[in-house]
């Protein structure tokens, strides 16, 4: 069957499934709308958390990033999974025991202050809105690439689908569609990976294949890859760090605590029946996430080696990489390369006019290597490869049947839509519950609040769609900012709220503001004030990454340290917490007496 038709059918079927679930799981109460009625089984909740967590970036871009970064790419793998250990032990069970709908509500009650919850709402909106812009652009890109419609049409279709199940189903609809979306995306990710691993190493599991022998070469896949990439002037795959060991360390910390502090992930643990379930559910979430995350490094290394192998015959034979007859003649290139050239993600430019493809690191500073390159008559690397190809073209590179390619399309869309829906829920709950019900209209009836929640959700979808259609200048830096904000503001505030009985409102507010402030200061210094080009500061005089060589994306960890330090300093100078708050903290710490999650206030 024709590939395009097949893609329409598979994607159409997956959408029909999501909408069917949405009709079945309509939300009739605020409890169902915000926390799915609090009765989701921990394993299902884990699956939904996995889909919620793994965005278009995880699905499409991460393997490509790792393929480029080699060992250093491990910071994404550890950073985006290690946060769940923190979440399971430090936050999820206690916030579940507290038993309220939203994260700002905990902050407001624990720090006995509307001011604290307002700051938390601001942090939450800043983190979630920046995150969702990336998702909406991802939705547009996925649609246009897979379904052959324009970017704009893609975003409109995406908005329509999310609208149907998120507005009517609320958290209940979102949770059960996310379970289905998880199944679609994990199949779409692992099936091509298994085939590739099979072809390259003879071992069907990519987790083991990565540590196996490269088919017919007598050496392990990783040492073959190390040898090929260093011969071609790139950094050694298994040892290349990200800037420096310190930077890699701090970057990993930022991603871990950012993960634990992202509100759309935290609220997922309010949907399980008991405290005990919140702990187990974090474990299940990580199991489902790790299935994809342990597959990704295999996909990355194998696709990288495969690409070199495709354009240079000496990779497999072990011959001279620089000998002319070993370089692929452009006119003899495989069909998948031709197909991806059309999309612009793969480009070839014959710089030395020999009609053959040379792909190497032309920016290498090694004079010996450059001399070899000159002797071979190479005039620059001729192939430009977009990192997204690593996952998207995988099934074609491995000559898999059309239905697998169509499944990858459905998987990419599932990843983008499920994350967008989770973020939209966090945003609309902050508006309808934390702002409207708690601050502006306390007399709002439950029915009124449910309606307000749905309207807020609909408005958020329109705003997110608009931002997706007209991505602001800062779109590229948004995900890093979301993690920086969550790491430097929300995570420390929640942790101190549970583990310190003496932390008071002055300390918490000052800490959050200082943490976000210093993180934003460092990011803006590099990327411009509110990401407006040319307004950066200090970088000219001090050089980029001026604080100990740490890059701005990794600065959330430093912001968190500042948050803790300022919070404890201010706490010691201001009045202590009231007695009833200390009692409340004690109560939160023990599982007994947990009840259904609701929206009422403790005081």
């Amino acid at each position, binding site marked *: 069957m024709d590939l395009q038709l097949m893609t329409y059918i598979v994607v159409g079927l997956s959408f029909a499934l999501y909408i069917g679930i949405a009709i079945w799981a309509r939300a009739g109460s605020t409890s169902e709308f915000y926390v799915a009625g609090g009765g989701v089984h921990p394993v299902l909740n884990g699956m939904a958390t996995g889909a919620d967590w793994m965005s278009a970036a995880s699905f499409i871009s991460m393997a490509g990033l790792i393929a480029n970064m080699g*060992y250093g790419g491990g910071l994404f793998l550890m950073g985006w999974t290690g946060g*769940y250990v923190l979440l399971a032990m430090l936050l999820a069970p206690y916030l579940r025991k507290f038993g309220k709908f939203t994260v700002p509500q905990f902050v407001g009650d624990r720090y006995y202050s509307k001011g604290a919850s307002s700051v938390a709402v601001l942090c939450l909106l800043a983190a979630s809105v920046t995150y969702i812009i990336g998702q909406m652009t991802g939705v547009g890109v996925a649609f246009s690439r897979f379904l052959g419609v324009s970017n704009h049409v893609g975003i409109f279709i995406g908005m329509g689908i999310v609208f149907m199940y998120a507005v009517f189903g609320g958290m209940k609809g979102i949770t059960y569609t996310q379970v289905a979306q998880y199944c679609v995306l994990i199949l779409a990710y692992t099936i091509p990976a298994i085939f590739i691993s099979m072809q390259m190493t003879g071992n069907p599991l990519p987790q083991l294949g990565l*540590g196996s022998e490269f088919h017919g070469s007598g050496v392990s896949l990783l040492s073959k890859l190390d040898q090929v990439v260093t011969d071609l002037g790139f950094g050694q795959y298994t*040892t290349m760090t990200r800037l420096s060991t310190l930077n890699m360390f701090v970057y990993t910390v930022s991603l871990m605590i950012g993960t634990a502090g992202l509100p759309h992930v935290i609220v997922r643990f309010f949907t399980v029946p008991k405290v*005990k379930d919140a702990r187990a559910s974090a474990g299940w979430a990580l199991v489902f996430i*790790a299935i994809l995350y342990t597959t990704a490094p295999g996909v990355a290394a194998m696709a990288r080696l495969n690409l070199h192998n495709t354009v240079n015959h000496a990779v497999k034979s072990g011959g001279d990489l620089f000998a002319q007859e070993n370089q692929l003649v452009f006119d003899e290139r495989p069909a998948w390369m031709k197909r991806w050239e059309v999309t612009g993600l793969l480009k070839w430019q014959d710089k030395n006019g020999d009609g053959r493809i040379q792909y190497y690191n032309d920016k290498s500073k090694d004079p010996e290597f450059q001399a070899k390159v000159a002797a071979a008559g190479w005039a620059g690397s001729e192939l430009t490869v977009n990192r997204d190809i690593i996952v998207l073209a995988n099934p074609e590179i491995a000559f898999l049947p059309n239905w697998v390619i169509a499944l990858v399309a459905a998987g990419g869309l599932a990843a983008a839509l499920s994350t967008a829906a989770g973020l939209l829920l966090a945003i609309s709950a902050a508006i309808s519950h934390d702002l409207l019900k708690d601050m502006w209209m306390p007399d709002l009836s439950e029915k009124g609040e449910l309606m307000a929640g749905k309207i807020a959700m609909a408005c958020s979808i329109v705003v997110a769609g608009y931002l997706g259609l007209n991505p602001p200048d800062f779109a590229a830096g948004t995900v890093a900012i979301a993690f920086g904000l969550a790491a430097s503001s929300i995570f420390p505030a929640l942790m101190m709220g549970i583990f310190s009985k003496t932390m008071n409102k002055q300390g918490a507010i000052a800490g959050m503001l200082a943490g976000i402030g210093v993180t934003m200061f460092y990011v803006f210094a590099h990327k411009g004030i509110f990401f407006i080009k040319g307004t950066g500061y200090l970088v000219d005089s001090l050089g980029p990454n001026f604080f100990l060589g740490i890059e701005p994306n990794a600065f959330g960890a430093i912001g968190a340290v500042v948050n803790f330090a300022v919070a404890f300093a201010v706490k010691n100078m201001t009045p202590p917490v009231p007695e009833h708050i200390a009692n409340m903290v004690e109560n939160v710490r023990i599982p007994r007496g947990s009840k259904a999650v609701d929206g009422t206030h403790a005081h």
Partner: protein
Amino acid sequence: MDDQGKAYWNAVLGLIVKVLAVWFIVSYGCGILFAQALNSIHLGGYPLGFWFAQQGSMYVFVALIFIYAKLMAKIDEKFDVHED
């Protein structure tokens, strides 16, 4: 807080510190700080430091959460603060 409550909370903190120690050693220790040194050891075709950074730490994280959940349930029962 009564003595029983204090003892419960100390038991909880003790468990958290132990789990976090393992969490730190596998990821930041084996995966980052000592990765270079560990790379001289091989696990199949994997250099060991690289394996910790891209595979091993994730397996350990999963195991840690389930072990933590199980031990917490025991502590809850011991101090009689578990849910019904």
